[in-house]
């Protein structure tokens, strides 16, 4: 989307011709830079200074105007991690705490991320929407760190406590994804089937069906 929508936008072409240097790195072919900067998902756009120091990053897609505005804001110190941390010195804004946790998460600084997500949870209601987001984010940290038992436990608790919201729904399918990552095909299939039984009309139902078919065809029968 960045390549087909953002980088072909007339303002973006002008911006990257006159104001800012653009690099496009294929992370599977040129793997060192992605490792160096702890890039965890794609697309990720890093803003670096001339010395290669990270100013901040955008994770995922944004429309051209928003994409360029975010980059320009970052060059002015607006919306960067440092900016948010300064704001948090005097604020008790849970959204802000969540954004800081998210920035640490995508920089690969898991412990700091977890600390900020914990502040989101502690300063709100146990099962409100932002607590659900923060708890999913913490579970995601465990999953990305391949700490599968902790991830499963976290997702299981979310699925039990957030039965009336999409957080609980997501937690069910993520348990299947964790089992799959563990190589536990039978449990993964069972969990995807549980998801389909509970949420047959969800937007991820088709994905769950595809995964069940793939796992059944894979011939893996570990555990």
């Amino acid at each position, binding site marked *: 989307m960045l390549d087909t929508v953002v980088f*072909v936008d007339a303002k973006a072409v002008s*911006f*990257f011709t006159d104001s800012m240097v*653009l690099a496009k*790195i*294929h992370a599977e072919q*040129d793997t060192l830079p992605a490792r160096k900067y702890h890039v965890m998902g794609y*697309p990720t756009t890093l*803003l670096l*200074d001339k010395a290669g120091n990270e100013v901040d990053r955008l994770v995922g897609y944004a429309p051209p105007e928003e994409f360029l505005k975010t980059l320009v804001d970052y060059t002015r110190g607006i919306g960067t991690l440092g900016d948010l941390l300064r704001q948090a010195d005097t604020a008790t804004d849970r959204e802000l705490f969540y954004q800081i946790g998210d920035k640490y998460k995508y920089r690969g600084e898991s412990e700091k991320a977890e600390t900020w997500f914990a502040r989101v949870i502690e300063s709100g209601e146990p099962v409100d929407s932002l607590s659900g987001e923060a708890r999913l984010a913490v579970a995601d940290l465990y999953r990305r760190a391949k700490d599968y038992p902790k991830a499963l436990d976290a997702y299981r608790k979310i699925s039990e406590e957030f039965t009336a919201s999409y957080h609980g729904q997501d937690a069910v399918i993520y348990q299947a994804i964790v089992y799959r990552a563990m190589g536990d095909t039978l449990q993964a299939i069972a969990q995807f089937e549980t998801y389909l039984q509970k949420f047959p009309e969800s937007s991820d139902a088709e994905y769950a069906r595809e995964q069940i078919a793939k796992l059944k065809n894979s011939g893996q029968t570990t555990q």
Partner: protein
Amino acid sequence: MKIGGYKLNKAISAVAAVALVWLACSKEPADLVSEAGHAPYYTTLESALAAAGTNQYVAVDFYTDW
């Protein structure tokens, strides 16, 4: 004019020097991609950082095929 002598060598050297300077000035880095209708970009981080002016920033898009 001396064929094979000092003056000819000097002229050839001068032409070669001018040609080298022209080549250096006109040749784009091998890893700079400039296509009509697309933002110009470098395909290596090193070249992008080297191309950035003092106080200029570099945006690095990390992508995969999937």
